[in-house]
């Protein structure tokens, strides 16, 4: 036989090794043949990266199915979703899977980023992959933002109206980008068509490229981060098949089963048909944007975007700041880092509701400074106050807590994350009609 025939038709003697040969090809593209035993402890990574990848794959599969039934036109989008929900065999299930797995993906990608930060997974040459990871999280959010418009219900219309208006506050290219996306004076056919093309073609292409690079780079960087082994000890290495694959397979089956059951019990929501003349009251964003929505209630839109923008830039730049390699692979860097994190979390849980209530009920910056333009009184000043507060927290940990750079950074990072979660909760549960503060029950 010629060489290519041999390759094509080669088959090992027994079933077991035959199956393995097939599996190896695929799996060993993603994994090395052997992995260090501690890397398999699931409480290290919590499997969050792998779960995110699985969900992304599920998005592609269900998304392509939806494309066969969905019409990207203002007249027919809503009815096509109704048809999917009520007439198409398994339509409600497929749409439910796409919807819920999109939501879950935001959670898992976010938690994955937190895990990588807390274990110092961006150290020892992993800065590039840290950036790619942040890019992937932003990509997932963009996927959700663009997918959101497609059902053309009230939620879709108003969330995108607010989102694109937000863009036009950005200096320089903001208005141009918003006009380009909208292709008209308000959210309409042009916007729907643009969002559809971006959602089903541009973003999936980017996703596949970036995810492939992300995985390849993990291996290139020497596998996932691990604590430095104690001197002169040897870490045991186990074969990927079956040790790692078994864990992954179990996790995947459990996850997919739960998702299917969940999607069967709770169909994806669909509100009333979009009506450009009547926003619902309250007109809330999707839950994962409610932290930003909450900021918008307190400051000028430009400041409300610059604050998370600054935080994100700082998080992206962490590998330049925290370079200590001794503590790689150790959660919170050290015991003291753990204490800083808990302190920061408690601080955020206490401080954020107080700030929200004080600003809502008593503090009216523009009224205090009537001479100043709104952009400064309600924009620059709250922005600087917030950034100043964050800097103060960092230096408190450094000076009073005597934390080193890495430990203080863990504190600040925890404060940011818990603040975001708190703001999101205020937006989800404590905002009622007219966006007034209410009790959720």
């Amino acid at each position, binding site marked *: 036989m010629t060489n290519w025939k041999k390759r094509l038709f080669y088959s090992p003697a027994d079933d077991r090794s035959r199956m393995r040969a097939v599996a190896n090809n695929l799996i060993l593209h993603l994994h090395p043949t052997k992995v260090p035993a501690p890397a398999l402890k699931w409480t290290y990574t919590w499997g969050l990266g792998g779960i995110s990848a699985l969900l992304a794959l599920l998005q592609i599969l269900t998304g392509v199915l939806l494309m066969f039934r969905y019409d990207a036109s203002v007249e027919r989008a809503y009815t096509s979703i109704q048809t999917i929900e009520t007439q198409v065999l398994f339509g409600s299930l497929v749409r439910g899977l796409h919807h819920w797995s999109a939501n879950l993906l935001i959670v898992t990608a976010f938690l994955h980023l937190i895990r990588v930060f807390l274990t110092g997974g961006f150290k020892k040459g992993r800065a590039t992959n840290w950036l790619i990871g942040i890019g992937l999280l932003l990509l997932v959010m963009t996927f959700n933002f663009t997918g959101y418009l497609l059902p053309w219900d009230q939620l879709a219309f108003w969330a995108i109206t607010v989102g694109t208006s937000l863009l036009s506050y950005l200096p320089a290219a903001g208005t141009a980008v918003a006009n380009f996306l909208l292709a008209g004076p308000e959210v309409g056919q*042009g916007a729907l068509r643009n969002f559809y093309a971006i959602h089903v073609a541009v973003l999936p292409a980017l996703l596949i490229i970036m995810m492939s690079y992300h995985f390849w780079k993990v291996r290139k960087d020497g596998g996932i981060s691990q604590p430095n082994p104690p001197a002169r000890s040897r870490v045991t290495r186990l074969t990927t098949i079956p040790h790692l694959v078994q864990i992954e397979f179990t996790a995947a089956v459990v996850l997919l089963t739960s998702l299917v059951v969940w999607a069967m019990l709770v169909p994806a929501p669909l509100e009333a048909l979009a009506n450009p003349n009547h926003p619902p009251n309250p007109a809330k964003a999707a839950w994962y944007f409610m932290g930003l929505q909450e900021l918008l209630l307190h400051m000028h839109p430009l400041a409300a975007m610059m604050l998370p923008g600054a935080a994100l830039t700082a998080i992206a730049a962490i590998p330049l700041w925290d370079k200590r390699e001794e503590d790689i692979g150790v959660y919170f860097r050290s015991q003291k880092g753990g204490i800083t994190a808990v302190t920061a979390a408690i601080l955020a849980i206490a401080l954020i509701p107080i700030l929200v209530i004080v600003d809502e009920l008593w503090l009216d910056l523009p009224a205090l400074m009537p001479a100043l333009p709104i952009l400064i009184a*309600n924009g620059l000043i709250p922005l600087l106050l917030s950034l100043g507060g964050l800097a103060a927290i960092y230096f408190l940990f450094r000076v009073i807590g005597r934390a080193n750079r890495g430990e203080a950074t863990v504190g600040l990072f925890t404060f940011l994350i818990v603040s975001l979660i708190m703001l999101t909760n205020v937006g989800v549960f404590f905002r009622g009609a007219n966006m007034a503060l209410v009790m959720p029950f």
Partner: protein
Amino acid sequence: MSQQNNTLPMNRRDFLKMGATALSLLAALEVGGASLMFMQPRRLDGVFGGVVTAGPADSFPPGSVTHFPDGRFYLIRAADGGFLAVYQRCTHLGCTVNWEADQNRFFCPCHASAFDMLGSVANPPAPRALDLFPVSITDGSVVVNTADIQTRDEFTPAQLAYA
């Protein structure tokens, strides 16, 4: 040959390389620009975006606010009889404001901005008064040009149009 080469600023190979790079860049720019122009859609015109005839001036009593949903505006007749057409789009982040007659204000349900009857900001976060469409009164009927969105910081009497 080689001696000659040394006196030239670059040899043939480098020259061709540079030329090829420059041409590829140019081609990339052209393709990129053409793609952008391809994607830039024509504005789609609906009811909104043209000239709307609101009706006879007499049918709007002074101190009244009338909603024209298809034209996306509220027609306001001030107490002194002057007309003002305000775009219904909240100047904060674009939600549609509702006229609340009992409170004498426009209210935005999205982030709770409020505007007084003439469209000036009564409660932030809205950064400026509701936008205007030019109003003209021809042969006793009120005509609003919704193609021309005019921004303003606050209400001034000069914005009113009279019959």
